């Protein structure tokens, strides 16, 4: 009995350790990608902040400042820009963000229009019959600002012609390498911008007019918001994958330890058996 059992255990140890090798490698890859993504998100931040400050300033110039992008209207159709990952095996990363999207529109009469970023998002919304305006699979890792500009432009265009009345962005915020939370940010109409920075802003000369500059800056602002969110989601994905793979590696280690224990036990038992047989055989002879 012992020999057959031993062979089984040995085979299992082998398979678990080869899985462990894979998960370990994925963990290392994810942590190096995470480091790079963090750098990228830091280098994009000054642009985003300067842009936000500028928009806020413009909006606070005049009390009666109005463009179609700041006016809230009755919400009939919504546009969701959803950023998910390209690959699975990242713990709850993809399902969390997609669940958040589903929860956000469950009371709506009409399904929202979708711009899907990341292969997992594309697959999810295609399968469930959403109207997917644009798809960007395999996008996050080398997202260029030009592509984010396309997305922002699509959103601005749809909003400007009145096909959608609200644009929201779903991404995963990177809280720490261990904690990532799905977030939703309203992009359009821009509300509460320019709560007043306290400076004396009335004297700035806008060429040709504050509204014209605002409308020109707006798509770029959305673009930088989207690209920040893409980079951050990517960092979150890597963080989630790293954690998932780390625990998978730990589990594999534990399994290997348990299996080798039972392997050794079986081996010991076999030896004891053999010795007992030899001894009893010798006893019978003498």
């Amino acid at each position, binding site marked *: 009995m012992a020999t057959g059992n031993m062979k089984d255990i040995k085979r299992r140890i082998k398979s678990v350790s080869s899985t462990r090798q894979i998960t370990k490698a994925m963990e290392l890859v994810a942590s190096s990608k995470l480091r790079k993504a963090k750098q990228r998100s830091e280098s994009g931040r000054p642009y985003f902040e300067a842009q936000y400050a500028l928009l806020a300033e*413009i909006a606070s110039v005049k009390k009666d400042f109005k463009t179609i992008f700041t006016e809230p209207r009755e919400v009939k159709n919504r546009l969701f820009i959803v950023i998910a990952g390209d690959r699975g095996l990242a713990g709850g990363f993809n399902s969390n963000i997609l669940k958040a999207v589903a929860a956000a529109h469950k009371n709506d009469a009409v399904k929202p229009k979708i711009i899907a970023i990341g292969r997992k998002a594309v697959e999810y919304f295609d399968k469930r019959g959403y109207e997917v305006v644009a798809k960007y699979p395999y996008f996050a890792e080398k997202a260029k*600002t030009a592509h984010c500009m396309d997305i922002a432009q699509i959103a601005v265009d749809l909003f400007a012609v009145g096909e959608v009345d609200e644009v929201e962005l779903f991404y995963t915020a990177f809280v720490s390498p261990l904690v990532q939370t799905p977030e939703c940010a309203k992009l359009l109409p821009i509300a509460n911008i320019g709560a007043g920075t306290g400076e004396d802003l009335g004297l700035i000369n806008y060429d040709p007019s504050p509204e014209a500059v605002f409308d020109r*800056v707006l798509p*770029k602002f959305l673009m930088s918001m989207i690209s920040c969110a893409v980079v951050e989601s990517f960092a979150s994905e890597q963080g989630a994958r790293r954690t998932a793979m780390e625990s998978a590696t730990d589990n594999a280690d534990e399994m290997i330890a348990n299996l080798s224990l039972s392997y050794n036990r079986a081996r010991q038992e076999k030896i004891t058996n053999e010795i007992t047989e030899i001894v009893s055989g010798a006893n019978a002879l003498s």
Partner: protein
Amino acid sequence: MTPFKLQIITPDGVFFDGMTENVIVRTTVGDKGILARHEPYVAAITISKFKVKIDGNFRYGAISSGVIKVSKEKTVILAQSCEWADEIDVDRAVKAKQVAESRITEYEKANDQKNLDIAEFKLKRALNRIEASKMR
């Protein structure tokens, strides 16, 4: 000339942060030169060349659409992308120009206005970079 603080910020990071004596950019309403103690001013920048005077010498560069904001403490240029003339990869720009041109003829045939606009935008950028690279 009195120097003043200039920052050029792109989505890829801070491109330039230092003192300058004069900045000349092309806004949607025409060329605009900024000297020290300029009045607070904001305008959108089109795809164009720009020049910055540092220690008495002009340095040229290519910029693709952005905004210039002049305030008391500093001048900030927010650009979608920005390059110094002597750092432009001319081969890449020429290639981009050819690609854009072939796309334009393709989309014109297909009557695809949206992609045509994008291709035209790319062509403008490539031409701007090629021209700027000659001004090193």
